């Protein structure tokens, strides 16, 4: 039995009967026709304040902008000109702008109507993984694995304060009401409150609100800023008093780390998603558990409660955005929902094909349709000039390069590693030190990327 099958069976017994899911954006049409859907795992979902639009961020190096209507998300535009995975997205209140945070540490400000980038903020030294925007839309804050929080002025497009103090990756952020207070939390397990002066140009630690011991993955500020809800690596879900730093309520948390959290627009519902696949929804007025469901296919990475408090969008371990109708519940038929993961195929005997499926296929297809994955399709790769596929946002270094992809160049790519073969490429570290392994992959690619074979590789 495969590991993934074991994983599913392990959670099936706790599956509650009432889970209505609709699958959205399951890959599909590739870049030429952009939007369609994501081509890699979805890491972030947010709904606009009016609930009519959504943003999603994905491992496929893109942010997507959607129209939200009932249980439907209709893709409007795709912002794929990024150099790394998009871990966080946010609407900018009072404008038609949005922000995305990338694994290359950059923050991008986008014009949603024009589909263009307004600014790219640089400064973080590691993955940028969380975003918060002040209620007046003037300031954005970003959190990074480099242990810092950085502020960005969205009017002047200039960098603001750099908040240092966390001793590990910072993973979650939230502005307090009024915009002159910021809360941050991270793997050091400490929730910090920062005082922002000079309209965000300066910032200093106001106080340590709480020390949880275990790392804190997610936090939200509730009501008028007097409470914080946070979720920990130990699965804890805790309500804090921000003034006294005391625990108001320890909720029945998750068996595994809490990965996602959202508060409904009217503040009456709060939801958490865990690595245990559990989604829990509380009434924030009395902290009673209102809904609890087990998603049978593993971790819940992103949650966004719809404005009517009757449903939510969420993302699991793959490229799909799912819809769960909480009120009224709809039954969820587990047996009819196959979640094939191409990476987890252990029945392939050809070593080249197995390597492609397990490693390359998360970013590349073999068919003409690139399925919006992070990298360009490998269809017809042999004989193609590097960086020449129309519609794909290549790095500057690949655009400048002139060599042709063939057996020799592909062999050198994996023998040296992309970062040495073409420094500046978006392709991540990937080396195959064994010449026989490289040969097997190249032989497979020669067969699979040729015209007749590639047409049969729809799933790859």
């Amino acid at each position, binding site marked *: 039995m495969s590991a993934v099958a074991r994983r599913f069976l392990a959670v099936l017994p706790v599956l509650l009967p009432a889970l209505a899911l609709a699958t959205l954006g399951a890959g599909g049409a590739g870049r030429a026709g952009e939007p369609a859907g994501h081509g890699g795992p979805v890491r972030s979902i947010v709904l606009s304040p009016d609930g009519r639009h959504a943003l999603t961020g994905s491992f496929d190096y893109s942010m997507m902008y959607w129209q939200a209507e009932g249980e439907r998300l209709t893709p409007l535009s795709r912002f794929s000109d990024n150099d790394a995975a998009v871990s966080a997205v946010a609407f900018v209140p009072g404008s038609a702008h949005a922000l995305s945070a990338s694994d290359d*540490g950059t923050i991008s400000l986008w014009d949603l109507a024009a589909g263009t980038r307004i600014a790219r903020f640089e400064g973080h030294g590691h993955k940028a993984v969380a975003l918060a925007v002040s209620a007046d839309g003037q300031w954005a804050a970003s959190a990074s*694995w480099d242990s810092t929080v950085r502020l960005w002025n969205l009017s002047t497009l200039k960098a603001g304060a750099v908040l240092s103090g966390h001793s590990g*990756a910072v993973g979650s952020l939230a502005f307090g009401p009024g915009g002159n207070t910021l809360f941050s939390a991270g793997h050091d397990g400490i929730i910090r409150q920062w005082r922002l002066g000079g309209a965000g140009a300066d910032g200093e630690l106001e106080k340590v609100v709480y020390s949880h011991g275990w*790392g804190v*993955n997610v936090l939200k500020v509730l009501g008028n800023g007097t409470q914080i809800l946070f979720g920990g690596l130990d699965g804890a879900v805790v309500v804090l008093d921000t003034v006294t730093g005391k625990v108001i309520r320890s909720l029945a948390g998750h068996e595994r780390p809490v990965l996602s959290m959202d508060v409904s627009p009217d503040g009456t519902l709060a939801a958490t998603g865990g690595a245990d696949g559990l989604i829990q929804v509380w009434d924030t007025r009395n902290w009673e558990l209102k809904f609890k469901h087990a998603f049978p296919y593993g971790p819940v990475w992103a949650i966004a409660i719809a404005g009517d408090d009757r449903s939510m969008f969420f993302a699991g371990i793959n490229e799909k955005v799912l819809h769960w109708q909480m009120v009224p519940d709809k039954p969820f038929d587990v047996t009819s929902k196959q979640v094939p*993961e191409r990476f987890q195929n252990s029945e392939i005997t050809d070593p080249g094909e197995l390597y492609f499926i397990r490693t390359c296929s998360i970013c590349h297809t073999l068919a003409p349709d690139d399925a919006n994955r992070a990298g360009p399709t490998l269809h017809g790769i042999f004989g193609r000039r590097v960086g020449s596929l129309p519609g794909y946002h290549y790095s500057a270094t690949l655009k400048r390069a002139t060599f042709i992809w063939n057996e020799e160049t592909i062999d050198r790519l994996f023998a040296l590693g*992309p970062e040495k073969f073409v420094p500046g490429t978006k392709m991540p570290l990937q080396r195959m030190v064994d010449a026989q392994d490289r040969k097997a992959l190249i032989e497979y690619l020669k067969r699979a990327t040729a015209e007749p074979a590639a047409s049969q590789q729809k799933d790859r």
Partner: protein
Amino acid sequence: MARMKFLCDAERCIECNACVTACKNEHEVPWGVNRRRVVTINDGKPGERSISVACMHCSDAPCMAVCPVDVFYQTDQGVVLHNKDLCIGCGYCFYACPFGAPQFPQASNFGSRGKMDKCTFCAGGPEKDFSDAEFKKYGRNRLAEGKLPLCAEMCSTKALLAGDGDQVSNIYRERVVARGFGSGAWGWSRAYPGQGA
């Protein structure tokens, strides 16, 4: 078959960092990556305690559940290992590990997607035992040599114990009988639920 486990006795750790140094040296872990670290709480204050933290090789490891490309596997001795050739550097395991074990070296290219590195319980990886590839990617395979992790072997106060879970918990129980429970075996119940130390 023995089930390998770590136990850190917070009553005994003196924050000497020998475990950290031993690990770095034994596996030639590159700059910027620490497979093991010592965390001190209430530093300089009454109740100060230190604990040595790394991958605990959890019985039901959460990292395995969240990896989108299934790089993790558990050996028949209970050691959680991963295949670096398959790792895509997404960082999802980082959010799932209560112990902060997954380490991501800053990649030189601007995609920042270095391969994940973590404690192997000195058990190497999927490459052939004692091969150059195994050492370069995962470090030394002491378990295959019949030895236990060097961090615990080097621990001068025997705060850090590593080995067969039954034996490790028996040693700890004897200490508790002699001295009282104290600050406990930090992380044990989270890593190995239902297996009291």
